[in-house]
């Protein structure tokens, strides 16, 4: 990195990261864009830094989206089990207790998991119905999250289109780099988060 490049970068505001995110990994993402796109001048640097940060935020929200669905999984399983276990003569309270115990055991006890899968198959269902219920249960949150993701992606694409005007053929390269990063081809997705993961 040239002295002029460093001086220009110092003029741009720092990119804020979460306490759980690794600065080294963010620098890796930013350096990958810098090396591939070789921005010239402060305006190009501003936009390349923007694209790197937007890419980082897209990755952050995508991880959270998966996390939200995973967090809703247990509640979804419990709800489904309440329907599957219910028998006409059985009091609702007992069914709820049984469903709660079985849903909890799903995560640690293979026999309980097997029992749940059997119950599902009795109704011609499989594991995917649990995920579907988890997604349905978090519908409002996921919709809001998707809107934020769409907004970030739109801005990233706009920034790269802007660079097209500034430098021919640059945007396609920017988008492809960003997509490669998001798909985990440059940086594995599971490694992007957390100092703890890096440690």
């Amino acid at each position, binding site marked *: 990195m040239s002295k002029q490049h460093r001086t220009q970068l110092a*003029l741009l*505001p720092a990119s804020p990261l979460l306490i759980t995110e690794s600065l080294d990994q963010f620098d890796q993402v930013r350096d990958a864009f810098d090396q591939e796109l070789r921005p010239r001048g402060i305006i190009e640097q501003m936009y390349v830094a923007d694209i790197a940060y937007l890419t980082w935020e897209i990755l952050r929200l995508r991880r959270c989206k*998966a996390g939200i669905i*995973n967090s809703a999984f247990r509640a979804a399983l419990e709800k489904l089990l309440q329907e599957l276990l219910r028998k006409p003569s059985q009091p609702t309270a007992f069914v709820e207790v049984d469903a709660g115990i079985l849903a909890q055991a799903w995560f640690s006890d293979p026999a309980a998991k097997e029992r749940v899968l059997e119950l599902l198959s009795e109704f011609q269902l499989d594991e995917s119905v649990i995920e579907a219920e988890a997604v349905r249960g978090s519908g409002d949150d996921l919709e809001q999250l998707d809107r934020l993701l769409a907004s970030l992606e739109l*801005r990233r694409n706009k920034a790269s289109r802007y660079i097209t005007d500034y430098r021919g053929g640059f945007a396609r390269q920017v988008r492809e780099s960003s997509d490669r990063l998001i798909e985990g081809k440059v940086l594995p997705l599971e490694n992007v988060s*957390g100092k703890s993961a890096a440690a």
Partner: protein
Amino acid sequence: MASERQIAANRRNARRSTGARSSDGKGRASRNAYRYGLSSSATANVERTKRIERLARKIAGKATGAVILEYARAAAQAELDLAQIRRIKVALIERMFVFGEFQAPQAFKATSEDKRLLKALDRGGVILPNPADATMPAAEPERLAEAVRRALPELSKLDRYERRAAVVRERSVRSIIG
């Protein structure tokens, strides 16, 4: 202090509200961005003004015309606004990550609950409120996802400010290039 009936009436009225109608009300609504300090004047902070000026000079390059410099200042200010919004977003998520809610942790919400605590203490049994933090997952990836989920309404509002700042920056830079 408002009575419970007044609070209930306020809530009913608020549900019917479709936004400000009077010019005074619209004026107040237009200053909502001040809530986050996003629209505060650049002159309010000398150091920030200096940063804007340094960045603007760099953006303008060799151009010395007053018009170009003004566009460069607008672009620089928008760039710093974007950074500020991103810092706020990160701070909100982190706050939620730690506390599980935006309201400051509070022992009890009503005097009656305080009295109940005193009575419980008197009887030798204490009923402690369930803090929001207790409803947060303990492990990191799930806790972060939950923090983001709880912060979504605030993040959506900030996204609007962010989009606006990005548009201002782009327009200003395009004007410089001509």
